[in-house]
């Protein structure tokens, strides 16, 4: 660990408050949403206080400043992801980003490379978050395409053995998560990307749980589309990113239509501006985009490699401590290779909801349930789990608080 999480924590004002009558906040729910450093909060505030105006629309000074800040945030995101500036689309979150991709493909006319029809295949994995599952179910239902998926092995890894049956000349899209929000599994992309590209399919990556936690370079990964949410990456709520390659964005039809995304409009026809404008109808979430840019600056200043190393060490520590107990069942990889800091588990037969409630009474925030990956938890035979998810502001003492909280819960519920 090359930085001190306790010093980092000082940058996050929420850690000054206490939980349930004076308990220290042990926040282990960053997989759901991350906390925000003061600089990010201040950047939204400063936008409203000093520069607020509709971007791209006014010839006045406020509009110029707002546009500069907004487009500056786009450049930051592009650099952070190893992308071109006009390849970065601001959305309201990963859910919108993924729906954008699926709906825009659904809007593709015959002849367009994204056109999907009966006989085509959409390939997913069994570990997808609902946000990267249901939009594809709906697209399949609308187009008649077939929906198929990679299974998950008992130890929580993707079963690649059927790759050649799944990814065939019929396959148009392979959509998968980079890191499972339930299992912590980091999926191997090279083999999938190569197989997909060999048959002319595009790869859509749900990077919600990777971009905030490790260095992600879109060119190195070789994927075609990428989505994530700002609020899980120290950014404001209400902003996310959809990235794709310039030549794909040129061919993809738009999704939301309205102001600022057009080239020309009559009562009955419209033509589109170039990306990114083409995909950003309406007055954008300006203050939030600017805030996300500042979050990215903050992460970069600490260093994504350092953050990943910190989380690796913390995860390894917590995984070891969980696995020591025979009453605790860790769902997901028990080894640290290609494994991130989402740890799901069950404790004896204490229902996760009860465990979570008990931990809350100790100031420990975890998430319980199916974590919006219901088909996965069902297939693993655990309709609900408790999940601890780690981030840069967590420390070994948070791990220890969780373990001791679990012990107390077992006593409380008489196990």
């Amino acid at each position, binding site marked *: 660990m090359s930085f001190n999480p306790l010093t980092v924590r000082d940058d996050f004002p929420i850690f000054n408050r206490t939980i349930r009558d004076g308990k220290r906040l042990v926040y282990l729910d960053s997989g759901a949403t991350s906390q925000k450093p003061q600089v990010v909060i201040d950047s939204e505030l400063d936008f409203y206080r000093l520069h607020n105006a509709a971007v791209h629309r006014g010839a006045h000074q406020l509009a110029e400043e707002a546009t500069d800040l907004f487009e500056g945030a786009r450049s930051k995101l592009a650099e952070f992801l190893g992308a071109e500036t006009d390849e970065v689309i601001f959305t309201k979150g990963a859910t919108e980003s993924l729906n954008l991709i699926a709906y825009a493909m659904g809007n593709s006319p015959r002849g367009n490379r994204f056109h999907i029809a009966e006989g085509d295949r959409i390939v997913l994995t069994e570990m997808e978050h609902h946000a990267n599952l249901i939009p594809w179910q709906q697209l399949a239902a609308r187009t008649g395409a077939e929906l198929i998926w990679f299974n998950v092995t008992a130890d929580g890894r993707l079963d690649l053995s059927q790759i050649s049956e799944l990814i065939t000349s019929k396959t148009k899209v392979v959509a998968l998560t980079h890191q499972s929000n339930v299992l912590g599994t980091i999926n191997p992309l090279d083999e999938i990307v190569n197989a997909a590209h060999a048959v002319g399919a595009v790869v859509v990556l749900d990077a919600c749980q990777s971009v905030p936690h490790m260095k992600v370079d879109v060119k190195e990964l070789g994927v075609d589309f990428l989505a994530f949410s700002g609020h899980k990456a120290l950014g404001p709520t209400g902003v996310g990113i959809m990235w794709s390659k310039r030549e794909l964005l040129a061919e993809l039809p738009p999704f939301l239509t309205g102001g600022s995304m057009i080239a020309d409009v009559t009562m009955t026809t419209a033509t589109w501006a170039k990306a990114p404008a083409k995909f950003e109808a309406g007055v954008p979430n300006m203050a939030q985009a600017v805030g996300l840019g500042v979050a990215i600056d903050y992460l970069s200043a600490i260093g994504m490699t350092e953050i990943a190393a910190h989380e690796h060490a913390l995860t390894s520590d917590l995984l070891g401590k969980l696995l020591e107990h025979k009453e605790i069942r860790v769902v997901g990889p028990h080894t640290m290779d290609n494994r991130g800091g989402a740890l799901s588990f069950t404790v004896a037969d204490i*229902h996760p909801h009860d465990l979570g409630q008990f931990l809350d009474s100790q100031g420990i925030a975890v998430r319980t349930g199916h974590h919006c990956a219901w088909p996965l938890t069902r297939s693993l035979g655990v*309709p609900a789990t408790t999940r601890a998810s780690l981030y840069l502001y967590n420390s070994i003492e948070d791990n220890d608080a969780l373990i001791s909280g679990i012990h107390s819960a077992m006593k409380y519920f008489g196990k």
Partner: protein
Amino acid sequence: MNLDNLYQEVILDHYKNPLNKTLSENFDVQVHHINPSCGDEITLNLTLDGQTIKEITWDGVGCSISQASVSIASDLLMGKSLSEVESISEEFIELMQSKGKKTGDEAVLEDAVALAGVSQYPARIKCALLGWMAIKDATLQAVEKR
């Protein structure tokens, strides 16, 4: 706020030894309810006898609150007339929405007053209501069916 307000002895007892948790073979109506936010599920069989609920049996998975609540409800509402069921259910829902301001009338709600603490934990109210909603739904369907 003390966790013991939520996890009262009565609740943990019902959780460990739930009442009517064996699905009957015969029933007027079977319903299946889910709490999508946490994955709790319940299957519930209900039989009417005239204007009275004759039998409630159920099976399901869920947290102590949802399991105890359906156990309590099945016991409390079985044998009651439809209008009693309605007024008791309403009183229970009011208790749940009281944000800790009501304690519940034990003469009406019996063991269900032990769930009063749930009203201070908004995320758990749905757990406590799962069984009650299933009973309400099943009753409506059973009445309609006739």
